[in-house]
């Protein structure tokens, strides 16, 4: 008999969780059996239980059987990935920005080049040409640079005109400092605005040290006022707060300010906690390497400051933790071989340099170019093929990892920044992190299982 190499065996009290990385099964076994499994002492396992473990592919007759099951899953999942027609559209009018935030992903590639009206026309010709082949997300994402810089106003107005009689809406990722200059046009076209994402990293003394620009030394009050104006128009906002060591302990002060402004419970405001832990955020002083320790910090802080619970702890989970909590809460999991839709070439980022990129933060990196859309459409077939293969099952290091169908292989841009290749994974100790997570949530998990 052969013990699968795709098992994660995690102790929890007197029991162990067995996670099967090939088929997504999770089982609870006594620690006694876990030890027998670990020692490959199959003969001592109760026959009924042994048969169950064989049926659920924790144990095979031989390694060949495991390979067959692995390959079947790999084939099915990859088939679905490449045949999936869903695509997202992201428009970067320009990479230029009126801020110069400390951890910005795009600033080293910042250029003042800007799209023309003709570029916007070409994007819509592209959509028209491919509407049968692809299913486009109804929300067009505006990214950049800052999409709402004053210099972009004619492009923004033109884009609104283009989507007027369509089902498309705009999802605008903005730093929030110049929204007041756009408020009238937003008011007139509010049914075309799906959502804003705006960032406040903490109270003014924290936020203003991270998010500032040449002409904007203090941005907190300006952004907060703009958020309030958008909420008056009932426009949904994701309020993003980027967390790292230096800002974590001040977050409750931001919530207090939101409380004072009576917007902390506004139904159009969705607070969202994000960890700064990626390699491409070079400006951060202390990138996070063990996300679970921040769950601990968040929990401890929210015991002291319950107002923090407007943020959701699950925002801090990595994919393996989300997978496990789905199992525990009896929600269905689906295998994940890509970290995001960028991997798999499912995102088209239209940039001012006439090119289509795979990731919105990658403009100017040759390896991320999928093709051109201006003056005419031209695909870079080699790159498209490479991006369709940017998944964990195609990366050597991931193939033998029990998380191969759970973690997705890590951020492609991080992989590029770290290894100068998108075909190497970014591995942040997923298994160890998951074990820490179980340790931290032992009582909660056992209670949910016994429910």
């Amino acid at each position, binding site marked *: 008999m052969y013990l699968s190499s795709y098992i994660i065996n995690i102790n929890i009290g007197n*029991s162990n*969780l067995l996670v099967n990385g090939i*088929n*997504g*099964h*999770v*089982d*609870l*076994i*006594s620690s*006694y*059996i876990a030890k027998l499994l670990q020692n490959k002492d199959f003969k001592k*396992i*109760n026959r009924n*239980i042994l048969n*169950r473990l064989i049926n*659920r592919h924790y144990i095979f007759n031989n390694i060949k059987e495991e390979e067959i099951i692995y390959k079947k899953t790999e084939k*099915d999942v990859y088939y*679905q990935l490449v045949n*999936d027609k869903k695509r*997202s559209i992201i428009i970067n009018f320009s990479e230029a920005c009126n801020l110069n935030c400390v951890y910005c992903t795009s600033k080293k590639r910042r250029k003042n080049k800007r799209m023309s009206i003709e570029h916007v026309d070409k994007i*819509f010709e592209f*959509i028209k040409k491919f*509407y*049968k082949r692809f*299913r*486009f*997300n*109804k*929300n067009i*994402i505006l990214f950049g640079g800052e999409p709402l810089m004053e210099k972009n106003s004619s492009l923004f107005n033109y884009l609104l005109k*283009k*989507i*007027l*009689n*369509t*089902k498309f809406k705009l*999802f605008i990722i903005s730093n929030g400092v110049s929204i007041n200059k756009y408020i009238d046009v937003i008011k007139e076209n509010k049914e075309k605005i*799906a*959502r804003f*994402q705006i960032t406040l990293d903490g109270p003014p003394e924290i936020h203003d040290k991270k998010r500032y620009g040449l002409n904007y030394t203090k941005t907190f009050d300006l952004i907060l006022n703009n958020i309030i104006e958008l909420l008056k128009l009932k426009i949904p906002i*994701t309020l*993003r707060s980027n967390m790292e060591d230096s800002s974590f302990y001040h977050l409750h002060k931001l919530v207090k300010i939101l409380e004072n402004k009576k917007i902390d419970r506004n139904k159009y405001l969705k607070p*969202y906690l994000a960890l700064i832990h990626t390699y491409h955020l070079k400006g951060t002083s202390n990138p996070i390497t063990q996300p679970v320790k921040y769950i601990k910090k968040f929990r401890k802080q929210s015991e002291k400051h319950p107002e923090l619970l407007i943020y959701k702890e699950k925002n801090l989970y990595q994919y393996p933790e989300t997978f496990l909590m789905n*199992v525990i809460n009896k929600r*269905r*999991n*689906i*295998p*994940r071989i*890509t970290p*995001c*839709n*960028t991997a798999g070439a*499912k*995102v088209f980022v239209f940039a001012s340099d006439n090119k289509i990129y795979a*990731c*919105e*933060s990658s403009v100017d990196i040759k390896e991320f170019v999928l093709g051109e859309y201006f003056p005419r459409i031209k695909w870079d077939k080699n790159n498209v093929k490479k991006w369709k293969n940017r998944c964990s099952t195609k990366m050597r290091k991931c193939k033998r990892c029990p998380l191969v*169908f759970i973690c997705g292989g890590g951020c492609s841009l991080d992989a590029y920044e770290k290894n100068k290749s998108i075909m190497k994974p970014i591995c942040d100790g997923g298994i160890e992190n998951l074990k820490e997570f179980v340790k931290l949530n032992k009582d909660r998990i056992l209670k949910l299982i016994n429910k």
Partner: protein
Amino acid sequence: MEEDNNNGQQRWEPLTTYTWNTGIENQPPCPNYQPDDGGTKRVGCPKN
């Protein structure tokens, strides 16, 4: 929960009942932002 009749040391309980290779998860373009609809609603060509 299945238990060994002799000593109760051997216990096993399945926490999942499905096989999972039935679809690709709908993901946002980047986990850095979370579209309202989870990135699941799609439309075709604009009318103009």
